[in-house]
């Protein structure tokens, strides 16, 4: 009888990783094609449109880089958290908290200070805002063993409403004629962009530098070692005297704080005021989960995988317009790719072979 035989793969070589990645993505695209086919969309045309919309033109490329900025920041932070198996699903609201803190600093101090002072202050405030919001689930998990997936998600819903309270209430801009936005940030508190694009390069530089630093931290420092041990073997971590509480707090300061930086980038670089949560973020916190996963939780690879998923976001916008597809299409893309990435991991961890089993007839 022909049987599938599964054994542990002991030697995982780089080419195995690459192969599993390529096959996962290919299989994922195939599955997406089937879904498209069933919803009456020509899959080849749709997929072509997505990638030509994002990587096929200069305009598309600029937009892709713009959307990659928050994804690099958040994805890098999530890679660290996920490595320690802290499932932070709350980056979406950690980003919003960063935007809230950053906007507050920009609106209140911006008119009195020059940009070299105010911009770093805004980023600092955003980092603090995201970090505080990220610390709540960390404390709830370690001290009260409350599942962080649920607590971070609930904090997302809560923060969403909190932003709305601010913009329709106390923070509503006097110059906005009753619209639910804050006033515009003063010029010194906005981030300049590369000419002819929306790329707020200050945030991009911050993003790339921090993920490189994180990559070094994960693989070369004691902290990184502790993060990896906690994730891979919590019992061993406990016996070797790693302080779970402290390490988890640091992890979430990093993860939340980086999402907060992304929030400052979006508020000060793109919108220049605080408005509805959906328009400030458009789901970066959730997309970044897959960004981190595609990068195999390596902060350095996050840059590439962020560009890839930023491309899908931009291409998704393009097919919404040209094919009249709903915004949810991008979610189908992301969800399907994530499913196949998980499946690819199985073939990376195990050798699967077809074998003639002679013993059982």
């Amino acid at each position, binding site marked *: 009888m022909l049987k599938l035989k599964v054994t542990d793969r002991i030697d995982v070589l780089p080419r195995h990783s690459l192969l599993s990645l390529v096959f996962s993505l290919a299989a994922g695209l195939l599955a997406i094609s089937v*879904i498209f086919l069933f*919803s009456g969309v020509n899959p080849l045309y749709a997929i072509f449109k997505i990638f030509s919309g994002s990587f096929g033109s200069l305009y598309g490329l600029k937009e892709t880089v713009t959307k990659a900025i928050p994804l690099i920041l958040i994805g890098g932070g999530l890679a660290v958290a996920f490595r320690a198996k802290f*499932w932070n*699903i709350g980056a979406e609201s950690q980003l919003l908290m960063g935007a809230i803190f950053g906007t507050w600093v920009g609106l209140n101090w911006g008119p009195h200070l020059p940009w070299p002072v105010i911009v770093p202050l805004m980023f600092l405030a955003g980092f603090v805002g995201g970090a505080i919001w990220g610390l709540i689930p960390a404390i*709830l998990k370690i001290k*009260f*063993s*409350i*599942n962080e*997936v*649920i*607590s971070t*998600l*609930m*904090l997302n*819903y*809560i923060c969403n*409403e*909190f932003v*709305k*309270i601010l913009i*329709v*209430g106390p923070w509503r801009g006097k110059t906005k004629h009753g619209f639910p936005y804050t006033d515009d940030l003063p010029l010194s508190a906005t981030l300049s962009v590369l000419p002819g694009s929306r790329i707020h390069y200050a945030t991009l530089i911050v993003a790339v530098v921090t993920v490189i630093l994180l990559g070094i931290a994960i693989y070369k420092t004691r902290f990184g070692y502790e993060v990896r041990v906690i994730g891979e073997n919590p019992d061993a971590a406990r016996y070797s005297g790693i302080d779970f509480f402290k390490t988890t707090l640091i992890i979430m300061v990093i993860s939340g704080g980086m999402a907060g930086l992304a929030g400052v980038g979006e508020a000060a670089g793109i919108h220049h005021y605080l408005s509805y949560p959906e328009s400030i973020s458009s789901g970066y916190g*959730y997309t970044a*989960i*897959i960004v981190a*996963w595609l990068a195999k939780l390596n902060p350095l690879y996050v840059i590439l995988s962020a560009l890839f998923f930023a491309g899908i976001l931009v291409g998704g916008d393009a097919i919404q317009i040209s094919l009249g*597809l*709903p*915004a*949810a*299409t*991008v*979610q*189908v*893309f*992301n*969800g*399907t790719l*994530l*499913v196949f990435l*998980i*499946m690819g*991991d*199985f073939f990376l961890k195990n050798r699967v072979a077809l074998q003639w089993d002679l013993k059982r007839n």
Partner: protein
Amino acid sequence: MEDIIISVAQRTLVAGTPLLLGTIGEVICERSGILNLGVEGVMSVGAVTAFIITFVTGNPWFGLVAAIVAASLISVIHAFASITLQASQVVSGLALTMLGLGISGLVGKPYIGKPLTIKMQNWAIPVLSDIPIVGPILFDRSPFFYMAIVLAALAWFTLEYTRLGITIRSAGENPMATETQGINVYRVRYWCVIIGGAFSGMAGAHLSTSYSKSWIEGMTAGRGWIVIALTIFALWNPMRAIIGAFLFGGIFVIQYLLQPLGISPNFLAMLPYISTLFVLFIGALRDSRKMNAPAMLAEPYRRGER
């Protein structure tokens, strides 16, 4: 005054019904050792399927059946990833949520803004529904409500007192020992994930064909996540889930009661989510040994390992 009490109680039961259905399903699934974080997505698939089929056939019962089938089928993805492939159940569940929300948005797009002309009719139980106050509250409800209560009792009885229930629980407590009893743990867990999905599908069908008569993207509004919290609150017991679900149903209704008092509607919209955190917090203060969580919950089990 009497009218207000009746109306509030009725709306509480209506709002709590999908939470109860979803929680029963998640309890069954988690008791077998599999954490399914895909409830939000599966519920959404159930909602859109029920809506479309009801819209096309004009019969909400067909919609319900279709929702159960669709939700069960999409749950197989999670079962395959987490049981056969031993993948991280957290990530697989999140993927299922994204996929479910995405597919339902894609498929449901043409139906936005088209209300159903027919919805699931209430069943007034003869004689009982004529009892003052209690009658209109408890015995003039949609079939979903009765199903939820009956299924909760049935699931509780099955899990606690039948051989099947012992099999399911032992798969979640000690899969290795279960396997030595000649029980196929993979098969047990597969069925529990699929049945859990079916319950989420029913919950979704309730949202789109009974609670409201329309489909909008994101209409599950985090209920799938509240269900997962309620599963913990219920200590993995379907009967306790009844209390939890209708408590939360009440919280959804309080929003509308307090709105005329001038409290910010955005603050009121936070209430279910704040309450979820609060409920988990209260749960955490309990003795963890009495928590009753399945010992091997979310631990991948590989057949033939030591």
